[in-house]
């Protein structure tokens, strides 16, 4: 029941209450994190003077078991019936203390947190100011919690299926983990094959095992697993619902071949009227040519051909004998294919959308695109790959073999003009490339680095091995690559200019081949993906995890998990580990079968509702219905997501939000201002 309080606000008369408020205030030291700045004793003393406060205590770590037991004991002994904990951010430990409140025998929502660490001790310079601000926040929480009301936690069922977006090594590993656990997995990949970046590599550091040998078995497992629905050439276009009950809309782009009929015999490619490849092969980073009908690589999964409508004569002119169709014994072609859509319900989503390699052309000083023998590391991976355009031979554009090779680290990374971050994998893969290029060509290899970063199991040992092999290491960031020759031996070659900072002189090193170790950056459409799945990114554009240390695979949107380089630069072992973790966390949720939802839904006080319908149109989730007969609005609490937009807009104060009623917020405002 809500009644005007004569102040323009409303006073809550809880529907059910646990009696007159007796509040316990617990101030946490958080070791020295809070106590080092805030005078905790003074805050406790202050709290004890506030209205309705029955108990005020401080403790070293409130989140520890003994800390929680303090609360539980005071509740059980009836000293208090409402709880305020002044400690870290509610985003950190609200759930912990709500649980303690429930264990103590009260509704978990008779609890309010005051963040005096993130909001106070960590950001306020002066101790006295910090203590004052802490007091104000505690007062706000105390005033507010007195008006909290009895609420039942909400429970919702969880759909048992899961979705994984992105079919690189992260998506593949997560999919297999969950499928093995008996969950049905929808794996959505935008390219025509799964495998991602890893499928392009030849060897992987530091063990130098062949990427295809370890990846392709997993790819075919995905293809054949009864619990996995693999959708390639597909993307997610819409997500609705909430944790445990997402409805995901997936678009399938046409590949003009019926996937279920194509056997991957590749006869059609042979018979295409283009006798030779003519179009840049994206899979080989444009280093080779393909036909309009092609398969990216032999182990592509699914092993289905793709038709490129931009290149195919039939699509361009409508005039072609279509020898491909003739060649197909299974009648798998369908040139009339159009986009189709699927809508599936899933309980959890794992995003494994990966990364984009830095575009080397953005650094004109390195001459990529200008000098033919400046390659990116991904191009070299393709050249080194036995299934690549040169059958594994490292050759210059004119077909000759390089005698001297320069590998430039940190291209696009650690650079305020491009990407500020360290891409983490480049040092190691540059060492790998140095080793392999030297092994294949016998060339002298120079690595130009700013700092060598080789933390990881077996990584420093790998560096040691490369040094032993006689690879030259120059500590200095390359300023430029030029074909300007300043000495006879530089004629006709590329010259790398860098300060060898360890000897303190500028060096000019003539080379035949330059390899640019391009960094890792977010996918160009990461912002769209973020909006679709309602999660956030950091300023640099990688998806933000719920907590950088303690919740590295979940997001602020319950039920959406992260795996792999979409969350930040990662190498393969880390990616796989994170994918396993994401799968496990999603499984834990799906397997339990239900989730607890926030109690903060909106409700309408019918007595006050004037039937103006303002709220009905405002609700972004169509959760508010209108009873025409009684001329009253009504909130469907199952659909309501608890934003409170209707509440903020209701002219008569009839719309209210559990845990955020007008009265509670007025009390908090007064609390934070009135005392200190």
């Amino acid at each position, binding site marked *: 029941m809500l009644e*005007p309080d*004569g*102040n*323009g*606000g409303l006073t809550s008369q809880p529907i059910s209450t646990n009696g007159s408020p007796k509040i316990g205030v617990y101030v946490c030291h958080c070791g020295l994190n809070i106590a080092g700045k805030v005078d905790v004793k003074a805050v406790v003393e202050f709290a004890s003077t506030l209205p309705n406060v029955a108990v005020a205590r401080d403790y070293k770590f409130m989140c520890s078991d003994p800390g929680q037991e303090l609360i539980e004991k005071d509740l059980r002994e009836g000293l208090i019936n409402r709880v305020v904990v002044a400690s870290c*951010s*509610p*985003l*950190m430990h609200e759930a912990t203390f709500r649980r303690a409140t429930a264990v103590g025998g009260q509704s978990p929502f008779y609890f309010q947190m005051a*963040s005096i*660490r*993130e*909001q*106070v001790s*960590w*950001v*306020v*310079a*002066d101790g006295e*100011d*910090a203590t*004052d*601000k802490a007091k*104000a*926040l505690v007062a*706000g929480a105390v005033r507010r919690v007195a008006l909290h009301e009895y609420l039942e936690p909400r429970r919702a069922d969880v759909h048992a299926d899961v979705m994984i977006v992105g079919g690189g090594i992260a998506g593949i590993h997560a999919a297999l983990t969950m499928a093995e656990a008996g969950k049905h997995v929808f794996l959505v990949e935008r390219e025509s094959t799964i495998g991602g970046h890893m499928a392009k590599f030849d060897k992987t550091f530091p063990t130098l095992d062949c990427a295809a040998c370890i990846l392709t078995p997993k790819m075919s497992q995905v293809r054949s697993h009864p619990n996995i629905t693999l959708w390639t050439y597909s993307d997610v276009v819409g997500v609705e619902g909430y944790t445990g009950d997402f409805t995901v809309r997936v678009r399938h782009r046409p590949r003009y071949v019926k996937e279920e009929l194509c056997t991957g015999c590749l006869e059609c490619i042979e018979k295409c009227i283009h006798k030779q490849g003519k179009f840049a092969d994206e899979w080989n980073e444009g280093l080779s040519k393909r036909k309009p009908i092609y398969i990216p690589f032999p182990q592509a999964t699914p092993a289905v051909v793709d038709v490129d409508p931009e290149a195919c004569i039939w699509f361009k002119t409508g005039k072609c004998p279509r020898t491909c169709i003739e060649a197909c014994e299974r009648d798998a072609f369908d040139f009339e294919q159009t986009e189709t859509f699927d809508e599936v319900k899933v309980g959890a989503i794992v995003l494994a959308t990966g990364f984009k390699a830095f575009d080397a052309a953005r650094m004109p000083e390195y001459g990529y695109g200008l000098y033919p023998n400046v390659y990116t590391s991904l191009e070299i991976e393709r050249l080194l790959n036995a299934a690549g355009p040169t059958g594994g031979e490292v050759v210059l554009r004119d077909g000759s073999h390089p005698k001297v090779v320069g590998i430039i680290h940190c291209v696009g990374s650690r650079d305020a003009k491009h990407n500020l971050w360290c891409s983490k994998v480049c040092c190691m893969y540059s060492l790998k490339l140095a080793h392999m290029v030297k092994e294949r060509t016998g060339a002298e290899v120079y690595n130009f680095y700013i700092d060598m970063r080789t933390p990881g199991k077996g990584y420093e040992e790998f560096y040691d091995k490369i040094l032993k092999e006689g690879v030259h290491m120059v500590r200095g960031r390359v300023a430029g690559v030029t074909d300007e020759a300043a000495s006879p031996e530089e004629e006709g070659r590329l010259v790398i200019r860098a300060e060898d900072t360890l000897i303190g002189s500028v060096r000019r090193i003539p080379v035949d081949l330059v390899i640019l170790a391009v960094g890792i950056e977010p996918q160009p459409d990461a912002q769209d993906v973020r*909006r679709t799945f*309602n999660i*956030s*990114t*950091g*300023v640099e554009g990688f998806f*933000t995890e719920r907590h950088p240390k303690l919740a590295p695979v979940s997001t*602020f*949107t319950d039920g959406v998990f992260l795996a792999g380089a979409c969350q930040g630069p990662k190498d393969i072992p880390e990616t796989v580990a994170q994918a396993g973790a994401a799968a496990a966390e999603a499984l834990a949720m799906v397997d339990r079968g239900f989730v607890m939802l926030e109690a*903060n839904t909106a409700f309408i006080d019918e007595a006050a509702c004037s039937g103006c319908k303002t709220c009905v149109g*405002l609700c*972004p*989730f169509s959760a508010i219905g209108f009873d025409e007969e009684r001329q009253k609005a009504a909130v469907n609490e199952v659909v309501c*997501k*608890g*934003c*409170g*937009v209707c*509440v*903020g*807009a209701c002219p008569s104060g009839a719309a209210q*939000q559990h845990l*955020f009623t*007008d009265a509670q*917020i*007025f009390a*908090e*405002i*007064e609390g*934070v*201002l*009135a005392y200190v």
Partner: protein
Amino acid sequence: MSEDTSRPFEPKIVAFFCNWCTYTAADLAGISRMQYAPNVRAIRLMCSGRVDPQFVLAAFHDGADGVLIGGCHPGDCHYQEGNHNARRRFELLRLMLRDMGIEDERVRLEWISAAEGDKVQRVCNEMTEQIRALGPLRLVTVPRWHAEEAPAEHVELVGQVTS
């Protein structure tokens, strides 16, 4: 509240931060140990769209010298478009506050994403500076539409404007 004239004026600013973007950004500022003016006291709401104009008036009534509202960037709202509602309401509120003689600098709406801890720091510092320069809030004029009822206390204002 008694004003202690021996101490220089320190403004009090009440902030309403949305749970998903700005409150998280403030947490990030904390984790990154970014020091900023202690004058801002944040109240967490689920969405900036929950901010009722009454909250702002109540804050001024209860002794705030400024009010800051923080929400997600346009297009980034966790609830699709709560921040648009916040903005529309804010524009109207600002007009009304102007009529009440409350300077524009005392109310501020900022889009601060979860990644922008530094923006929390900057905005809080800026606003504190600006309001410190303005001095304590003094309601000198009465809103136009209530002129005939002058002299109005702001206690009344809150009730009149919103009821």
